[in-house]
């Protein structure tokens, strides 16, 4: 059974193409990540899949229902946690959940039972009758994730679930998401621009850039596709002889040289550093410093798109500044300030 099937989906706003003919599928029970910088079109994609936006062209099904022709069936089978909180802060936690349950047509007995279960699941039973306005950021997120699961959807969408949360709350939230996936058996699609989040949480990751998907695979497979670790050698003097020697080495996957030095891609970089230093020595090149980079999804993004996520973000921010009708990007950018604040927390 396929949870989500997307074929050639395109969404344009005026002259701006937010989602550009992308295709992918999510299997049942998967924890699937859409990784990309702000402005890549992730939120727009999610909004199309949850029937809040109509696609310009292409098609998509969620739980076997078409997102244009069967909006009611799609809405019944999905839960969503939006990027910005969508709770009524003047109501209590329980009232928010009961409101939601009624909108999803749950009868009284069902409602009482599920609301209790959800409070247990997200660990907010003690605060259920407190006004949501008194909740902390992490508690609100948990309540929203719980609410997304209240009506037992088959697919749960999480749009940037940890933006604006501090590092510790983020880790807790990851744990919750994983537990929901395992215990409730629900397929989860999340968007994120946090490398770590995609790596730690997701079964498979789609790398999204400029409205299209650059690659889809497990985080490990994506990293392995780069051919190993990157050893950066900061060197002095001519590297011509050194490069000739590198050409002869079979254990080297790839290398590139620039003014800053030489970047060598090699499996088991830690074990090969000594060999590389010896080669450089033999070629009469003085080494100022050595740096080993384990590949992560950031380097995957770089090698797939030729730019880092941060560069892509500032590009799209510049474009959004000049184009007035860039709504998809704008809603993506809304979380950017929060993101900056959050990354400072990480440092």
């Amino acid at each position: 059974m396929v949870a989500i099937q997307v074929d050639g989906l395109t969404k344009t706003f005026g002259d701006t193409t937010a989602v550009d003919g992308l295709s992918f599928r999510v299997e049942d029970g998967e924890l699937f990540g859409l990784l990309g910088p702000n402005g890549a079109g992730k939120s727009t994609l999610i909004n199309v899949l949850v029937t809040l936006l109509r696609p310009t062209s292409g098609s998509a099904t969620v739980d076997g229902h078409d997102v244009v022709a069967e909006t009611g069936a799609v809405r019944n089978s999905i839960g969503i946690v939006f990027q910005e909180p969508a709770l009524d802060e003047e109501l209590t936690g329980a009232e928010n959940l009961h409101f939601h349950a009624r909108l999803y047509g749950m009868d009284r007995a069902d409602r009482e039972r599920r609301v209790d279960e959800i409070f247990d699941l997200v660990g907010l039973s003690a605060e259920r009758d407190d006004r949501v306005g008194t909740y902390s950021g992490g508690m609100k997120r948990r309540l929203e994730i719980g609410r997304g699961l209240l009506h037992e959807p088959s697919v749960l969408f999480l749009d940037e679930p940890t933006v604006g949360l501090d590092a510790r709350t983020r880790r807790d939230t990851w744990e919750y998401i994983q537990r929901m996936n395992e215990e409730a058996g629900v397929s989860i699609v999340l968007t994120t621009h946090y490398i770590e989040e995609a790596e730690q949480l997701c079964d498979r990751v789609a790398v999204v850039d400029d409205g299209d998907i650059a690659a889809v695979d497990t985080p490990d497979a994506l990293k392995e596709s780069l051919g190993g670790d990157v050893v950066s050698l900061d060197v002095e003097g001519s590297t011509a002889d050194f490069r000739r020697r590198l050409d002869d080495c079979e254990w080297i996957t790839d290398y590139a040289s620039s003014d800053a030095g030489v970047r060598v891609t090699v499996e088991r970089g830690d074990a090969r550093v000594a060999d590389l230093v010896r080669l450089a020595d033999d070629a009469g090149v003085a080494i100022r410093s050595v740096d080993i980079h384990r590949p992560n999804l950031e380097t995957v993004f770089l090698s797939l798109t030729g730019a880092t996520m941060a560069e892509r973000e500032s590009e799209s921010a510049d474009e959004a500044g000049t184009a007035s009708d860039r709504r998809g990007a704008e809603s993506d950018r809304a979380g950017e300030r929060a993101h900056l604040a959050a990354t400072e927390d990480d440092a």
Partner: protein
Amino acid sequence: MNLVDPLSVYALWLRDVKRFLRAPSRIIGSIAMPLLFLVFLGFGFSGAAIPGLPEGVDYLQYLVPGMVGFTMLFGASFAGMSILSDQDVGFLKEILVAPVSRTSIVLGRIAGGSTTALVQAGLILVLSIPLGFEVDSLLSLPLAVVFLVLIAVTFVGFGVALASQFSDSEGFGLVVQFVIFPLFFLSGAIYPVGSLPEPVQLLALANPLTYGVDGLRAVLVGTSSYPVAVDLGALVLSSVVMVGIGTYLFERVEAV
């Protein structure tokens, strides 16, 4: 998705009522202005020769139905526009992504908004009694409630229609100054419309609140410019039209 889903309408109604009851400042705020108008205009102009005032009717008697109508106009329009504050805090998306028709959402909004506006208008009516207001006949109160409900439905529908034209709540102030107050002054709430220039009187005839206030005056005070049946007919018509326009425009609101 059923066109009308009673459970969802109830959920939306319950939410509005809870929010309203939970914020005493909101209740006081909502009736403070009409109460001030009532007290100062009522006493300030008591005994003044106001042209066109029905024979033998004290100004306070004339004013109270007008202020009750004004309270309804104010409360109901704002209730309709509270869609915008939901949008500001992101809660509208939670509603729009649920398997509920837009019609049900508008009906829920109207149910909730009408209820809170009715409470406000009821408070004004009760508070006017110690000021000297005399209800013509208690038997006419049920008919007064019918008029109040029709005014509420008309203007919550109107508020929903207005809200659909704005993308955030910054338009609130403009709406109050350029829509709500003109409707108020053109309704005969504080003086008979007959003293206005002829072309302006035509505008008053197109204003649903004119019939609302006139109908309330008929049942509460026993004097009116038009037959009660005309007032009632006009309000039923305006309710249907406003709910229709509100639903139609809200259907077209983009969720994101």
